[in-house]
């Protein structure tokens, strides 16, 4: 795919985030703790898949490619999702903490992106915001329920929070591309959302009697295509059909 303009690059990042997260959620199909949660996880996965498609279609239009080629025929090194999204499914507590920290972040980020100078991104954000609002209602509720549930659920929530914390710093990492776009009022400045995000999540962790680690490790790389080993395995499964039979359709 060679050199890419800033806007396509950003749309690809948002698309990859949504696609990889959607895939991790879809891995819960058939093994969620209750039937209602099974439906909820798949519903949320579908919202993210829809957002991924809008973003990748936008990139496709700009770069003379298409959503399927972008999703199924790029290697891990070309994927630009954040590391948080690609971490393995984990247990239900991990899935809920990851969802919760993302939902709180997205409520801020997409809330501002809806006022983007770019009409395509603004439209995608406006659509996503409605869905983020009810994702957030559910994930906030689960943080409280797991924290105040049994000793087992609280302990698992605490462990999950420590694991998730390894990769949250990257949510707020800016690079040259996003700095230029933020300067042109096309995207929000991620780094500026950190305090507001902390103010949103910390009281809810406290209420759930769990505590995040004092340090937030500055691990990053996803935007540059430098991933953890988990992404390769995810892609080998997600892409297997299209790699074996390119262009195969239902």
């Amino acid at each position, binding site marked *: 795919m060679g050199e890419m303009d800033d806007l396509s690059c950003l749309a690809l990042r948002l698309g990859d985030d949504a696609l990889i997260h959607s895939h991790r959620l879809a891995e819960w199909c058939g093994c969620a703790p209750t039937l*209602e*949660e099974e*439906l*909820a996880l798949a*519903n*949320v*996965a*579908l*919202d*993210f*898949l*829809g*957002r991924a*498609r*809008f973003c990748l279609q936008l990139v496709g239009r700009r770069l003379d490619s298409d959503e399927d080629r972008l999703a199924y025929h790029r290697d891990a090194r070309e994927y630009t999702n954040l590391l948080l999204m690609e971490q393995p499914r984990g247990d239900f507590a991990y899935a809920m903490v990851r969802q919760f920290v993302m939902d709180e972040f997205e409520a801020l980020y997409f809330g501002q992106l809806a006022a983007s100078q770019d*009409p395509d991104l*603004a*439209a*995608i954000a*406006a*659509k*996503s*915001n*409605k*869905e983020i609002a*009810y994702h957030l*209602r*559910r994930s906030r509720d689960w943080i409280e329920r797991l924290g105040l549930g049994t000793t087992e659920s609280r302990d698992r929530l605490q462990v999950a929070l420590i694991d998730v914390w390894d990769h949250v710093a990257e949510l707020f990492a800016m690079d040259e591309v996003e700095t230029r776009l933020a300067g042109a009022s096309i995207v929000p400045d991620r780094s500026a959302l950190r305090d507001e995000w902390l103010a949103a999540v910390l009281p809810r962790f406290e209420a759930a009697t769990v505590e995040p680690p004092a340090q937030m490790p500055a691990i990053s790389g996803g935007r540059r295509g430098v991933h953890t080993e988990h992404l390769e395995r995810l892609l080998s499964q997600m892409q297997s059909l299209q790699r074996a039979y390119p262009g195969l359709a239902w």
Partner: protein
Amino acid sequence: MSVHPTDRGELIEVVPLARAQMEQRRANSDHGSIYALLDGVCDPELPILSIWDLGILQDVRVHREDAWTVQDDAQVSLEVVTVTITPTYSGCPAVEHIAREIKATLESAGVGQVVVETRLDPAWTTDWLSGAAQQKLRAYGVAPPEERACPICGSLRVSLISEFAATACKSLLRCDDCLEPFEQFKAL
């Protein structure tokens, strides 16, 4: 749509502005017959509702395009119908099915070339449901958005089981009187 009492005590129906604008666009359109054909295209998940009832159908435009026919080697003027739709939820799998249905319905009625266009902005909202949609949903056993009442026995004592039901657009509730579970169309 909702019913409100006026100062003088009479009941009036209040239609959200966006829905009123859609109705007006249809009423003023030169392509009423195409709209009428599209009334036959329904949501595969809620087959009682047409895409018009759901507010998925946004606009119908027609323009003429010159083209060459291979058979006669002559220039003809083709009618191209552009139908604009909007997805209810980002990941709604019904959108592609609906687009195919629109094409099939119009083409089998002999309406020239059909192009289906998807528009995201402004984002779909349940305010765009038609007045008829509310009635049809209730009769189908699905509570309309913002109507926390059992569609089976009418009881107002209901509880939420899950915000997420069998499709993205519905929540799962239970009636505390007749004990039947039922779905509600999510307000969005």
